[in-house]
């Protein structure tokens, strides 16, 4: 009886998890209000904004492909750069009309797909650039909402996401697993290319 319970506890959890997916909810990409304060608003903002989320994960994957040292640097420097960019973005009134996510997807997806070698210093510069640019956009978006505390929430989530993504890739030993990462990179690149086309079409 006890054994049955133990074996089926996992199954029960999975079924309850599936049941929870039946819960209807609406998608919101910007200025998420969780009702739990600006830090959580910032965390949710990152998690519910695929323009930022996919770019961060792609950077984490690439840093992981380049090894543990690069991954460690990225997980500390990206959140800091993002925060600085966010502060700068919240101080200006200009809304960037540049297709930043599309370009990030192209660069990061291309690097992951090609598994292109770059020295650690170059990856560090890339992480800082991505952090500054995306952080700037976030700063503009969060200026009238979660503000600086929201940026702090984003920083926390960035650290967690980059740590997890890069650590997973560093731990991959089997060749096919690294190939799966590269396939994910190619999908990111392809999405970026389509987004760029979309941007040009709208601009027309």
């Amino acid at each position: 009886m006890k054994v049955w319970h133990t074996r089926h506890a996992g199954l029960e959890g999975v079924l309850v998890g599936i049941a929870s997916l039946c819960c209807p909810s609406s998608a919101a990409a910007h200025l998420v209000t969780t009702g739990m304060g600006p830090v959580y608003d910032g965390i949710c903002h990152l998690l519910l904004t695929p323009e930022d989320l996919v770019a961060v994960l792609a950077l984490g994957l690439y840093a992981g492909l380049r090894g543990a040292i690069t991954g460690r640097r990225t997980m500390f420097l990206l959140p800091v750069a993002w925060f600085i960019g966010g502060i700068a973005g919240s101080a200006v009134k200009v809304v960037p009309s540049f297709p930043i996510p599309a370009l990030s997807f192209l660069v990061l997806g291309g690097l992951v797909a090609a598994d292109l070698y770059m020295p650690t210093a170059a990856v560090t510069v890339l992480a800082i650039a991505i952090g500054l640019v995306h952080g700037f956009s976030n700063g503009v978006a969060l200026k009238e909402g979660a503000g600086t505390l929201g940026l702090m929430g984003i920083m926390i989530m960035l650290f967690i996401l980059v740590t997890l993504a890069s650590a997973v890739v560093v731990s991959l030993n089997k060749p096919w697993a690294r190939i799966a990462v590269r396939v994910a990179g190619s999908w990111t690149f392809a999405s970026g290319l389509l987004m760029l086309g979309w941007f040009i079409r709208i601009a027309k």
Partner: protein
Amino acid sequence: MSCSRSTTWTSIVYVMALFLTWSSPALAHVEQGQAAGFVSGLQHPWSGLDHVLAMIAVGLWGAQLGTPAVWLLPVTFPMVMAFGGTLGLVGVKLPGVEIGIALSAILLGAMVLAEARPKLVLAAILVGFFAIFHGHAHGTELPPGQSGLLYSMGFVIATGILHGLGITLGLVHRWPAGKLALRGAGAFIALMGVTFLWRALA
């Protein structure tokens, strides 16, 4: 044991009932294509049999060729297809798109049928060339009012799933009967390609 099972199901029913009572905000206006964009992007590659068969053929052929083609071809296809999609999005005209798509089914099916083993670069060029036509067709057919990002992601993921399906089916290649079945599938895809070509030229 049956008591525990019924308890499990009862608890699941309770949880589902609880979730159904969970209130979600009423939205008076049409959403800005967020979830709709992802779902329609995900559905789009499955909407035409010509696309589906060609993408599955890429996976089957990759499986026949083995590594590194098994991953190189499915990596090449979405990237070049996205390039074709971008051309379609920005309004660049590409003549004979439907003919190109039909030819892709014929040629890729024929490659699977013949178990052709060209040089990897040639295989990638062939797959990439036809990916442009598929991407262009999708790019020009994009429905208005969708979220560009989520549509694109759904679209690319669905394409990857189709390739994955082809590769998974192609795993039967390790058995003699499986090899034969794969070649049969290649013949079927090529024949379907002929019908697509017939329709495109009619």
